């Protein structure tokens, strides 16, 4: 995969079994979001092929729930959370919903159900701009889930959340994965909040990638080989892994987040 004249990564072979919780890890600027966009067919691969849910990338997007990298809604946005979730169900339709039709009632029921599943019922009727980051994130996960997708792709959903919210959202994602049999592909730059729930890890670094269970991949020798520099993986007393010696991302990747106001 190339962005501009920069080779982000090559020879990445990813095979994700159904119903698993898989994390894509790696330092900033390594091309994690780009991998996801390639899987969605939004960015074409420079070379090679991507098949998602048995179809070429982009074809099966109706069966994919996608949560892009952290968006927060403007605090002045006067649109209810429930309306944002509803857009995930039928926002791409032409025409207007007929308010008294059976189809519309069914849509309303599905939206309420999915909001219930992410425990957001108590604030779904409030304008989404007034909600906290964690509350917004739950509603956005509901939006990604409302069509009962087979694959849920989340791009750094824990970013800019406080620690209790990080673990609460990670737990929620795990529950969705187990209860509904949805495959979850989640980009993260910090493995610690999700480590207890992960089935598989894809570690991207320095043009290459390693896949496997967390125990296989997040080890000192594997990461040292990936980065071509000594990396230590430490285990803290409460069982958390900490990666030490991770080099900083190259400086010339500043265009990565264009269009994402901060």
């Amino acid at each position, binding site marked *: 995969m190339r962005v501009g004249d920069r080779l982000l990564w090559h020879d990445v072979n990813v095979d994700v079994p159904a119903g698993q919780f898989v994390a894509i890890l790696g330092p900033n600027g390594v091309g994690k979001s780009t991998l996801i966009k390639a899987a969605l067919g939004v960015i074409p691969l420079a070379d090679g092929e991507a098949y998602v849910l048995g179809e070429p990338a982009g074809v099966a997007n109706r069966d994919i729930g996608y949560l892009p990298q952290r968006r927060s809604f403007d605090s002045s*946005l006067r649109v209810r959370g429930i309306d944002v979730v509803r*857009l995930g169900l039928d926002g791409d*339709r032409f025409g207007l919903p007929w308010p008294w039709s059976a189809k519309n009632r069914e849509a309303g029921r599905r939206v309420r159900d999915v909001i219930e599943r992410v425990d957001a019922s108590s604030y779904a009727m409030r304008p989404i701009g007034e909600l906290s980051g964690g509350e917004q994130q739950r509603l956005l996960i509901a939006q990604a889930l409302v069509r009962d997708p087979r694959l849920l792709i989340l791009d750094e959903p824990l970013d800019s959340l406080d620690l209790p919210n990080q673990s609460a959202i990670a737990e929620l994602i795990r529950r969705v994965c187990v209860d509904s049999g949805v495959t979850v592909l989640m980009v993260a730059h910090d493995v610690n909040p999700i480590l207890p729930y992960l089935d598989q890890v894809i570690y991207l670094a320095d043009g290459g990638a390693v896949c496997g269970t967390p125990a296989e991949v997040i080890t000192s020798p594997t990461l040292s080989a990936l980065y071509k520099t000594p990396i230590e993986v430490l285990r803290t007393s409460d069982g958390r892994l900490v990666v030490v010696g991770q080099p900083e991302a190259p400086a010339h990747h500043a265009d990565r987040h264009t269009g994402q106001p901060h």
Partner: protein
Amino acid sequence: MTLVASVVAVSNGNASWSWNLPGNVRDMFGYPFMVNAFRAGTIVAILGAIVGWYMVLRKQTFAGHTLSVAAFPGAAAATLIGISATVGYFAFCLAAALVIAIASRPSRGRGFSAESAVVGTVQAFVLASGYLFATLYNGLLSGLNNQLFGFTFGITDDQVVTLAAVAVIVLAVLAVIGRRLFFASIDSDVADARGVGVRLLGVVFLLVLGAAAAEASQITGALLVFALLVMPAAVAQRVTARPVAGIMLAVLIGVVATWAGLTMAYYTSYPSGFCITTFAFVAFIAVHRVRARA
């Protein structure tokens, strides 16, 4: 135009306000120019409120203002070359919409920040052009005032038909793309991944906005378009976060402000643009105060 203006003066001489409301309505509707003012005002109030609701949601009021300012050189140029002002309104507003759409190319994702510089540039140029056309056509001072601040009482039957036809077309377009436009307006990343054509929708909406601004300019004048385009929608979004209820409330506010403003203009001989704007502004202040207290 001068002929109609003198008719207004005569009617104002006879008209006096009373609280006999049906009588007032009979009184006003005795004059065809008042009937046309109410017809045209109602059409534009409905269209402006609905398009304005999306405009406020998308935070494109600056673009909306510029498109309505483009109505001024449009009307001036049409007068200069001797064609119908209506043609000039639509030609210039839609052309300005296309220029903004092509030149700004909003970067992916939300945010129209790249747009505002382009919009400002376009606005300065269209205002200057309008002034040029008005200067080239000497002695158009009263016409200039009407173009800038509105002249509701000179609207012909043909203009009402044109306003209605354009409004129906624009509302039909909005009915088709309304849901996708709502999606693209508040959540463009996900909408893009769903194949909603966010960029094309942005261009279509600017054209819709240009058409609505051209219509509203004919009622309130180029500088007071916001009375019908922004104020009702801004009030409605403050009152309710429900999309359908918000649009209906915006329409209600726009229509009531227009009717009240036209009535006030008839009985006081104050300019109609001022009267309509005042009622819309009162609604805005009232809601602001109520919400501030709540």
